[in-house]
Structures are given as C-alpha cells and as structure tokens.
C-alpha cells in the first residue's frame, strides 16, 4: 500500500477503458492487488474512505457488480446509499437529470452508475460534481469488469504483454468485450474476438483485433479465453438459431480445449449459462478462474474507489 498510495491517477472519473493510459491501468491493478491482501485478513475493513458518501445508482438490474461495489465501499468505510430504478426514470415523471441533482443535493462524493443507455456516465459528469464510476452503460463499456479480468490474467501470467486473449460470444451487445479490448490492447496483449457473424459489430477490426467465426481457428493460438454470456433475448432478434446450435459450434467444452497443446485459462464475467456458452467440465476445471475473478472484482473496485476517492479534484 505504501508504495502505490503516493501515486495519482491521471483520470478523474472512470467512464471507460478507452483512452485510459497504461500507467493508470497498472496503478489500478497494483492497488487492487494490495487490497486483495486486506480481503485475506480476519477483519476486512480499512478506514480509508471514512466520511465519504457513495451512491450506487443502478438503473438496470445487477447482482454481482452491485454487491461487489457495495462490499468494496463498505470495506473502505464509506457511507453507502443504494438507488435502484428499473428502466428510465422518465416513466415515473422525473427526468434522469432531476433524479441525479436531487441525490447530489444530499452532498455525496461519488456515484457508481449502471444504465442501459450508452453514454450515461459521461452525461453524469456534465450534470453532477461527483466523481463518476461506470458500472456498465448500454453495450458501451464496463471498465471495472475489464480491470478485474486484467488483474486476474496478470496475476496468473505475470504480465499482460503479448498475452494472447480471445473474447468469445455476443460482441455486439457486450460492454465487457469493448472494455476488455481497450484495456488489454493498451497493456500490450494480443486480442482476438470470436462469435457468429450476427454478433460481431461493424468495423470492430479497426480496434486492432482479429475476428474469428470458428472456435477451432482460435483455440490452438491463445493463452486465455474470455467467454461471454449468451443472452436468451438475442434469440428473438435472430442472432443465432438456438442454444443447442450455439453450444455445438461456439460452446467451450473440454473436448474442444484438448485441441490445444497447453492448458487454456478460462474467464467468464458471469452469470454463466452452463452448457450453452460453457460446459460444466470447463467452468469447474482447474483452469477456470471464474470464482477468482469474483474475488478480484471486490479488490480491484476497492483500489479504484480508493484512488478516485482520495484524489484531490484538479478541476
């Protein structure tokens, strides 16, 4: 803690991984690692953010991200308020801006926001003075997920440089994919994506990722797979014919992984659909870091909250 705590982040808010520097990412990961040690203690609480008030503003349902944030906030001794609303607050007759300004009038320091509309965290920085952390906006970004994924991979491999990572699944509707691509690329990893053509957004290759449509082409050449959740509602949009077909051609199974000469590390942002995008023999295998990701999710969020919460505002 002592060494990293003197360094400052360049960013004032965590809106996404796009344009976040390598130094900032390294600092967030290092700080996350020091908080991991706190989580191993019998008393898992530090007074770092004592007196700070954080609002978890969730306009979209979330279980693990919200719990991970709340645990991280409480373990840093912050005062925590949870605000949950489904869909647009406009439907209740109050605009998003009014909602935010009402909450802000109660003197809060930070807002952790999740919203189904891309761009909401940025919009928040324009209408609020609080420090903003994006907990997922539309299919745009989910930076804390990318940071916990990177923390997990770095811990396993020692470095992200030249690490070969493939993100598999519905890339077009995934904020996890975009944030991971930005973050991993900045850290020097070699990133590819794989999925049915219907789930690959236009011109994604311009981000410097290789695009694959056949899992067999990917497996021999990667160190880690980040397997995305397949959402049932995409079926009605004709993005794929059935869960069975998806599993048969894109599902990560033990048999498929055996095509690789060395073990491949498996990540999944959760919640997993067993035997759709991932089979149980992979999800529960020794090479799966899925539960370790969850632990790192709390640690890295403590690190981010600490770094942003203790930063004196420059603007």
């Amino acid at each position, binding site marked *: 803690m002592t060494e990293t705590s003197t360094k400052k982040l360049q960013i004032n808010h965590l809106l996404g991984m796009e344009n976040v520097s390598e130094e900032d990412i390294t600092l967030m990961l290092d700080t996350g690692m020091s908080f991991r040690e706190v989580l191993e203690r019998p008393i898992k609480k530090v007074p770092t953010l004592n007196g700070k008030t954080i609002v978890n503003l969730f306009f979209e349902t979330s279980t693990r991200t919200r719990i991970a944030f709340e645990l991280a906030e409480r373990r840093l001794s912050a005062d925590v308020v949870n605000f949950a609303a489904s869909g647009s607050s406009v439907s209740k007759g109050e605009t998003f801006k009014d909602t935010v300004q009402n909450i802000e009038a109660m003197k809060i320091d930070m807002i952790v926001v999740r919203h189904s509309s*891309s761009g909401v965290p940025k919009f928040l920085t324009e209408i609020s003075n609080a420090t903003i952390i994006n907990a997922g906006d*539309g299919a745009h970004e989910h930076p804390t997920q990318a940071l916990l994924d990177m923390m997990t991979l770095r811990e396993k491999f020692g470095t992200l440089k030249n690490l070969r990572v493939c993100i598999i699944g519905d890339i077009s509707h995934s904020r996890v994919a975009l944030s991971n691509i930005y973050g991993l690329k900045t850290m020097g990893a070699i990133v590819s994506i794989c999925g049915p053509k219907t789930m690959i957004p*236009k011109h994604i290759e311009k*981000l410097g990722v290789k695009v694959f449509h056949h899992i067999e082409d990917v497996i021999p050449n990667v160190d880690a797979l980040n397997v995305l959740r397949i959402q049932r509602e995409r079926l009605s949009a004709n993005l794929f014919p059935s869960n069975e077909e998806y599993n048969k051609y894109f599902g990560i199974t033990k048999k498929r992984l055996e095509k690789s000469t060395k073990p491949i590390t498996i990540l999944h942002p959760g919640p997993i659909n067993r035997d759709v995008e991932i089979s149980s023999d992979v999800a529960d295998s020794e090479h799966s870091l899925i539960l370790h990701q969850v632990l790192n999710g709390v640690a890295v969020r403590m690190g981010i909250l600490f770094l942003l919460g203790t930063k004196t505002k420059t603007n």
Partner: protein
Amino acid sequence: MSKNYLFQNAHIIDPITNKDEITSLLVENGAIKKIAKKISFDKNTVVINCDGIILTSGFCDMHVHLREPGFEHKETILTGLTSAANGGFTAVCCMPNTNPPIDSATVVEYVKSQAKKFPAVDLFVIATASKERKGNELSPIAELCESEVVGLSDDGNPVENADLVRRILEYASMYDLTFIQHCEDKSLSKNGVINEGFVSTTLGTYGIPEIAETTMLQRDLQILEYVGGKYHAAHLSTKKSVEIMRIAKKKKLNATCEVTPHHFTLTDEAVRSFNTNTKMNPPLRTKEDINAILKGLQDETIDVIASDHAPHSFDEKEVEFSYSPFGIVGLETTIGICVTYLIEKKILSWNELVKKLSVNPRKILSLPEIKIEVGENANFTLIDTNKNWTVDKTQFKSKSNNTPFHNLKLKGKPFGIFNNGIFIENK
C-alpha cells in the same frame, strides 16, 4: 403595408429570369415597380442599403415540423414562422406529424388559420398520406387537395406497406400531388439510434444501417416506375441513396429528393460526445456519405436542401442518449451553413444554391413560381454574404434550441426577407 421600399445596390440573383447583377429595386405596394441602377425615391420610401447583400427569390423550406396542433411546448406555428423569417425563408411546408395529424380538411384549416398570425411567411401544408398517419389506409386525398395541401407524407414514419405506396402514388397523381417518403425500413433500423458503423461499435449503441434507407428507396422507385406519379424522397443521408437517385434520374423517373444541411456537414464522429443534439433520423453518417451528397448536389441528383426543422424542448433533449427524441432545429442555421459549406467551398454557385432553396422545392410541390421582374410580387430572401457570425442558440426565434451547431462560426447570414408587402430584418 403601403410603404415603398428601395433596395439599393443589391446583388440580384434570379435563376428563373437569369438575373445576376448589382442593381437597385423598388417595391411599391408589395410588387416590384422598377429595377434599375439608379432609382429616385420620395420621403415615403424606406431605403435599404444592400451593399454586399444578395437579393434573391424567397427561399422555401419544404420540410419543417411546426408541432402545432398538439406539441405547442416544442414550437407553435407562430414561433415556427417567426423562426423561418429570421432564417431567411419566405415560405415553409409543414409536415403533418402533429396531434391530431394533418389528415383532414378541418386540421388543414386550423393550421392555415394559425399561419395568418404571421403573414410575412407563406405556410404550405403537407398532409398525411395515410389515414391518421398509421400507414394502413389512404388519407382523404381528394378532400385534402381541395383544402390546397401541397404534398402528402407520413414523415417521421415511412409508409411501409408497398401496396399502400402504390395506391398513394396512383391516387395522388390524379391531383398532381407529390408523395414525400421518409425512407426507413423499420425492420432494419429497429431500435437503432445512430449510424451503424465504427462509431456505433465503439459507443456500444444500436446502429441504423444505411440499408434501412436504401432498400425502401429502391423499392419505392420500382413502384413509381410501374405506376407513375410524383415521388420525393425526404432527407436522404447515404452515398448509396445518391447513387440510386442518380440512376432513377437517368431513367427519367418522376422522382426528386432532398438533403439536410446537417447531413452534408456532420458525421457520426460528432456523436462521440453523446450530445443528444447529434441524434436525428436518419442519423449522421460518414465522410464518404458527405462527399457523395456534395457530388449529388453538384450534378443535380439532389434537387433540394431542406432543414427538417424538428424542434424539441430542452428537457426532452436533456436526457439519456437512447431516450432522447430524434431531430434538431434548422431554420435559423440553414443559410449560414449553405454559404459556408457550399458557396465558400465552391461546391455550388449562388445560382445553383438558389435553385435548391427556392426554385426546385416550389417546382416539385407545384407552388407559384417566383420571378424578380417588374410587375411581379416581391418575394425575396436577402443574404449578407460576407458577414461572419457565430451560431448562438439562445438567440433563436424558434421555441426550441436543439442544435448541434451552437458556437459554430459561419460566413453568410440572412439579412432579411420581403414577402406579402412586409420587410423583416434578421436579428
């Protein structure tokens, strides 16, 4: 009203009578009395010094949303026409997506009665093509024609049903009415909010692919070729659409089209700010599309520039991007943008620009022709060609100020309009 006006040393441009000269022009009782280098005047004459001013046939914006009846918090006919005058337009054609929609003689009469509050700008009414603008049945086209509507459109929505497009074209052709289509296949645009491309990918927003526009345009032109009639494609936005229209014109189909100023100045890169004033339908496209549109303007594939003036109140726009309504105001920025981006950049000559903003829209909708000639009614737009100015949305006469052009530096500003005996100076 009975005052005389002398426009001294104006640069008169009139594509119809082929005028392009600096001279003076005297208006008496709303009609052009004399055009000459030197005109004597009496003390009852208002003399307007027009050094550096272009005086040309009154501009007509054939695609505006005035929101009345039903959405008076966004705009009223009075504020809309005031905005048009300030933007340099002597005529506008209002779209029928009001509440109730303009789909009967009664609503047409109501709209026209409101327009009497602001006689300097002529209001021409476009009625719905389908009953209640629902896209299922024909609107009462003959009755609407009798109420002197100038076109038919469900704008805001496409007429999706191909058979209905056919019947509208057939039926409207008996009354020489143009069908104006908002080309958008909704099964392709779905819940898209911006152009589908690299920007939508990196912003994680649903995209509206260009094929949503082009497939309907192509289909409609096939129907037009089969049944005849008059077809006008509103606010085209893609390179492919321009190519499709170019072929249609080669075939001599009775098809025309328009583009908006924002579609030839801004790209989807502007959406990276998540500014809801960059959200419109069709969406901002790419540099390649802009270049194709500029080319289409030059080779007359594109007939008209129209603003698609779509006012929304600030609180409707100051929301999450995906919940914001589509559309921006445009009446008060069109001229400045056209001069800066088309004249200054030598894309169009003044004569060509006047055609796109005055002559062609009037021709397409069979409105009276405007001539700058002795004996004709005086109907002018005046433009200060060298004026450098900065768009300030707080100065708009429109009730709404949802523009992506706030603080944009422009060259060329409306100087005023003269129509129906009234001179209104730009503020």
